[in-house]
């Protein structure tokens, strides 16, 4: 029985005990009489009661409840009604509790032997309430609507913005429309009736800034059924510093030069026109800089374009300088190959002769001329363009930098044929992949794209800083926890209080800024529900905790102790003054 009693303030049990004993000792010492009469014993007993009740008032005793063997069904959203019916058939005394976000139901739940979660499950931040309980998660129906979403949240201007997703159980005639800022329709797709359907919507980002796109669901009558916000932060194109070294002037270089220079990239071109005579052109550059091949000078370059002949003939020191710049500073090197290059070995790339000179790369609608070779796949080869599994453009990593090449030939023909966009996309893909990367101080990572108001927003930050400090939108510091294994990885949780665009920065380096969009819980409901279902599935997918449930405790009412204390104190006070109390 005594084992069933616990105290709320167990931590002060010792001081209270010592105090009580001391009080009692003082009392006995004060009342001590040589010839002990009954009155003495009564008073001592009363004092004992008084001290006890006082101690109880301080310690707040709790009664440990024996665990019930009953089963409780926790009903969450997405409940299948037949599940509950069958459960009720099985367990006659099944108790039912409705789950509500953030409501404390821990004590109630703990008085049961087992919890069965029906529906899609509970919010991950409420898992703690079920800690230690045997839980069975039966799962619910998948939510109707958008249940999957993947898109580039930070595309660069001109980049194709692709929104991929999965739609569950569309109705007949449902259409998904991608709308840009101001509600401009950008792309749409008609959904077939029923089932789980993947979809993809495409658009091109027009100008940089923070924008709210939206994904609208229309029915067959053209009525708007639902509109989900799609926050996108479009980055401006950063300007590259590019060096081009050619053994002789080519049309390919000429057109590539025009394309790059017109976009505002800094460009240095050195084409050999005769032995020891060069044509040197510089576009959009600072007059002070030039293209000399030394490690120090190459440090400032992002990309070096060279034909294979030049690369082969580079003097030893220069070759070393280029190599060092690639390995140490992350310079990108693009080699314009010729037949000799494709046949030779030792360049880092290996090629296979395939005798085809025209190819339609994947995701390109046109046939493009190429050398009759393709890349031989090998370790570390990163493909940029492929066609039917054959690699057409690729790069390999070399230290911090990258070396790339392509088998495409005379791509300027695309421009002459009027396919400007295809030409631009082709070269944008190759050169972006190879060129030097920015290495930010910190990289932010988030679990979910959908961030809700007043709900925990967990983020990760990878940084080389030793003591990073994150400041939120409100200007307050967000505490971070360092990962046990990876000392560069930190985690934090914040509760956004403002709808719309929020941000957080690293106090140590304000350039490391992270912007995110906070929505209310009415947005992306189906996606959030699907996420909950997945998390619950994973979380409860383990051996159920068998045996008894965790014991519950119930506070013993304090009133009794008060009354006893008052009566005892009253008796002890009145007894010396009134004969009635004197025995």
């Amino acid at each position, binding site marked *: 029985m005594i084992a069933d009693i616990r105290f709320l303030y167990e931590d002060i049990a010792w001081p209270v005990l010592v105090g009580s004993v001391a009080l009692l000792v003082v009392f006995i010492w004060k009342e001590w009489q040589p010839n002990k009469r009954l009155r003495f014993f009564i008073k001592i007993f009363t004092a004992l009661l008084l001290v006890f009740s006082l101690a109880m008032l301080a310690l707040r005793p709790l009664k440990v409840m024996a665990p019930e063997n009953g089963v409780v069904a926790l009903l969450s959203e997405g409940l299948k009604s037949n599940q509950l019916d069958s459960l009720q058939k099985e367990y006659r005394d099944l108790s039912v509790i409705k789950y509500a976000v953030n409501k404390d139901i821990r004590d109630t739940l703990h008085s049961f032997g087992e919890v069965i979660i029906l529906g899609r499950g509970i919010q991950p931040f409420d898992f703690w309430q079920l800690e230690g309980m045997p839980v069975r998660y039966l799962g619910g129906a998948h939510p109707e609507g958008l249940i999957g979403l993947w898109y580039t949240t930070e595309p660069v201007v001109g980049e194709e913005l692709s929104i991929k997703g999965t739609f569950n159980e569309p109705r007949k005639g449902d259409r998904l429309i991608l709308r840009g800022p101001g509600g401009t329709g950008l792309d749409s797709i008609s959904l077939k009736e029923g089932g789980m359907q993947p979809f993809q919507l495409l658009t091109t980002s027009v*100008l940089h800034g923070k924008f709210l796109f939206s994904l609208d669901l229309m029915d067959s009558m053209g009525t708007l059924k639902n509109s989900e916000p799609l926050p996108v932060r479009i980055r401006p194109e950063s300007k590259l510093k590019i060096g081009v070294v050619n053994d002789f002037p080519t049309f390919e270089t000429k057109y590539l030069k025009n394309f790059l220079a017109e976009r505002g990239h800094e460009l240095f071109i050195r084409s050999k026109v005769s032995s020891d005579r060069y044509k040197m052109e510089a576009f959009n550059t600072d007059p002070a800089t030039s293209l000399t091949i030394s490690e120090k000078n190459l440090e400032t370059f992002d990309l070096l374009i060279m034909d294979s002949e030049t690369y082969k003939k580079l003097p030893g020191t220069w070759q070393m300088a280029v190599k060092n710049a690639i390995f140490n500073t992350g310079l990108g090197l693009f080699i314009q190959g010729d037949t000799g290059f494709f046949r030779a070995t030792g360049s880092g790339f290996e090629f296979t002769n395939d005798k085809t000179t025209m190819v339609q790369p994947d995701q390109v609608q046109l046939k493009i001329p190429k050398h009759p070779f393709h890349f031989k796949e090998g370790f570390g080869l990163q493909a940029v363009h492929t066609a039917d599994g054959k690699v057409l453009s690729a790069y390999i990593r070399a230290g911090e930098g990258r070396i790339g090449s392509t088998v495409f030939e005379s791509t300027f023909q695309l421009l002459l044929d009027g396919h400007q966009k295809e030409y631009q996309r082709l070269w944008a893909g190759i050169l972006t992949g190879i060129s030097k990367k920015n290495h930010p101080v910190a990289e932010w990572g988030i679990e979910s794209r959908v961030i809700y108001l007043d709900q925990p927003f967990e983020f990760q930050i990878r940084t080389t800083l030793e003591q990073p400090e994150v400041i939120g939108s409100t200007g307050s510091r967000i505490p971070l926890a360092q990962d046990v294994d990876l000392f560069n990885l930190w985690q934090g949780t914040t509760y956004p209080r403002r709808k719309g665009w929020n941000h957080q920065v690293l106090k140590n380096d304000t350039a490391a800024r992270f912007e995110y969009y906070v929505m209310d819980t009415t947005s992306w409901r189906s996606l959030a529900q699907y996420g909950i279902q997945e998390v619950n599935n994973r979380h409860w997918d383990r051996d159920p905790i068998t045996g008894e449930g965790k014991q519950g405790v119930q506070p013993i009412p304090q009133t009794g102790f008060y009354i006893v204390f008052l009566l005892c104190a009253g008796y002890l006070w009145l007894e010396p003054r009134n004969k009635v109390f004197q025995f």
Partner: protein
Amino acid sequence: MISTAKNSIINLNRKWHFLLWLETALFGLGPAVLLYLVTGVLWWSVVAFMAISGITSLVLRPWKMNLGKICSYIDAQCKAMEYSTGLLLVPAEALPDLARLQQQKIANQLEEVRSGLKPLGHLRRAILITLFFFSCGLILSQFGLLETLRIPRDKSGIKDTIIFKSADSTSRETVPPKLTQQLLRLQFPAYTRARPVSTRKMDVKAVMGTNLSWEIGFNDTVESVAMESISESFPMRWVKGRYIHSSVVEASGFYNFRFTDTLGGSYVSELYTLEAVEDQGPVLEVRGLKQFSSFRFSESKDLNFNTLVTDDYGIAAVAIIATVSKGSGESVKFREEKLPFDDEVVAGERKLELSKRINLDDLAMEPGDELYFYIEATDTKKPGPNTTRGETFFAVIRDTVSNTFAVEGTMGADLMPDYFRSQRQLIIDTEKLIKDKPVLSKQEFNSLSNELGYDQKSLRIKYGEFMGDEAVGEMTVTADPEEAEDTVNDILESYTHDHDGDNEHNLVDHQEEAEDESNSNPLSTYVHNHEDPEASTLFAQSLKSKLMQAMGEMWDAELYLRLYEPDKSLPYQYKALELLQEIKNSARIYVHRIGFDPPPIKEDKRLTGEMKDIANFRKREAIATPEEFPNMRDAVVRLEQLIREGTKPTKADRSIFEQAGNELARKAIEEPGAYLETLQHLKWLTEEMEIPPGRFSAVQRGLLSAIPKASPGPDRDSRFLDTADKMLLEELEKHDR
């Protein structure tokens, strides 16, 4: 018989009924049409029609007409009916025998008088009254009389009213002055012969040169009124209680009005388009004629065709410009003629259908002659009429006699130099001289022979030019000092027979500037270097030797001519001609050189590998294309912020919107329909006024549609480089080696 008679009465009744109702309607119709033509309001005229017709029907009471009345009328009209017409309406069975007999009799009588029975009425009077009202209405509406009574025909009239909105939210408590009058007068250029137009509609589309004058009036005093264009403001003058401003349409654009009331409150109107339409040139359509017609000499050589000429404002003149080419080779002659159409060209007409018959015989054409002609139309535009030239048509009379070998057939242009043609002329002249020898004095003969010798020399020297002879250049030898003085301007003038210039009087005067031919060498475009015979690019080696040979013959011919022995000279001349013919017939000399012209090669430096004077080529340029519409882009981004944050635009924002508006206006002039609304909304945003919900989104949408699509380009992306990643890479490299 009785039933027939009864039917006649019923028919008469029916007809009468109809005529009465028609009369009623006609009485109402006339005034209703008049009212519509004057006021332009349909429902007013409908009400008038119903009211007048109703009153007339109450007077005429068509419904009161019945068979009984018809019978009474018949009885009154025909005594023969013996007042018994009513009997015909009663069934025979219900009548006594006597009455039946009378019925029979009356039925017969009625058949006889039936044709004379006509319903009484005033239909003619009703028609006359209706026509009177009609014509009144037409006259009033046609001549714009009672214009003040005219009420806008439809809602668009109300829509056209200029609506002023307060440009600042502070002066809202006072009652703003109201617009009482708005008028835009368009005075089209005189040549369009269009009548001036007055309209309340402020969006203008007018031909360039139209004079526009705006008049607006207010019920209260206002401080100032101005008309604002995209970046300019023109104050309007106060004349007789109205504010007026005039301008001439020169280019498309936008404008709005702004007025300031006496309390300093500013009000702006919506934005209106001003579309300048260019006067189009006449359009020609030739029907019934093939591009190329060829006739045999024996058949009738007529060309018949029709031409449809249309113009937007009026055609001033249409003519056929015909060129007849006669002969070929050196004797080709051109004659240009301006032929009128068979139909008269009425100046100022917008559409003309003209026909023409050209008879080639009338043009004195012979076999082998060719006719080229085109039609030229001019419109009435002033200043500087538009001229349209139609396509050229050809007609030829086939020459079946000659069949010459023609090298020209394979080439786009006849590159034959004129110099090749003159040897034959020299021969002819020499033969003539020999023939005329008996009649000429010795001195004359010698002089002519010498002249011919001089011609022969000039011809030889010109061939020398082709060969790149050193002896090229000015004529250094003069025949006679006296003659030399005369030949300062053209040294050859008095010696040569100008075959090319004698046709000039036959040509229609062209406006094009005549090319300065004094310096032009016809081969200069094809030949590059005559200094060095090696570098002469025109002739192949065998041709060169042939030409040298010919020149040798010419030397000899000249020699004998100078010795006054033209008969000895002739064989050489024939030889030279023969050689020239051979050269002429060799197609190789006409190979048309195009493409890359290499610079002259300096032989002393050739293949020496000497590079000391060759420097590296350096070029520095900034060719980055600046971003288009930067303010429009800023405005889109700022609008997004305003939408998300739900705040009002600040002064700085308004300035961005204004600049964005200026940028959009430039684009909108090209496509006014597409961006006018956005431009209008942007204009409102630049003023301090209440912004209705959704306005920001609408403007943002409009601006985004005007910003050109971005294209993909290379970018430097960001990638966090972790220590762990670095270590991994290093490890990989180690194992890679």
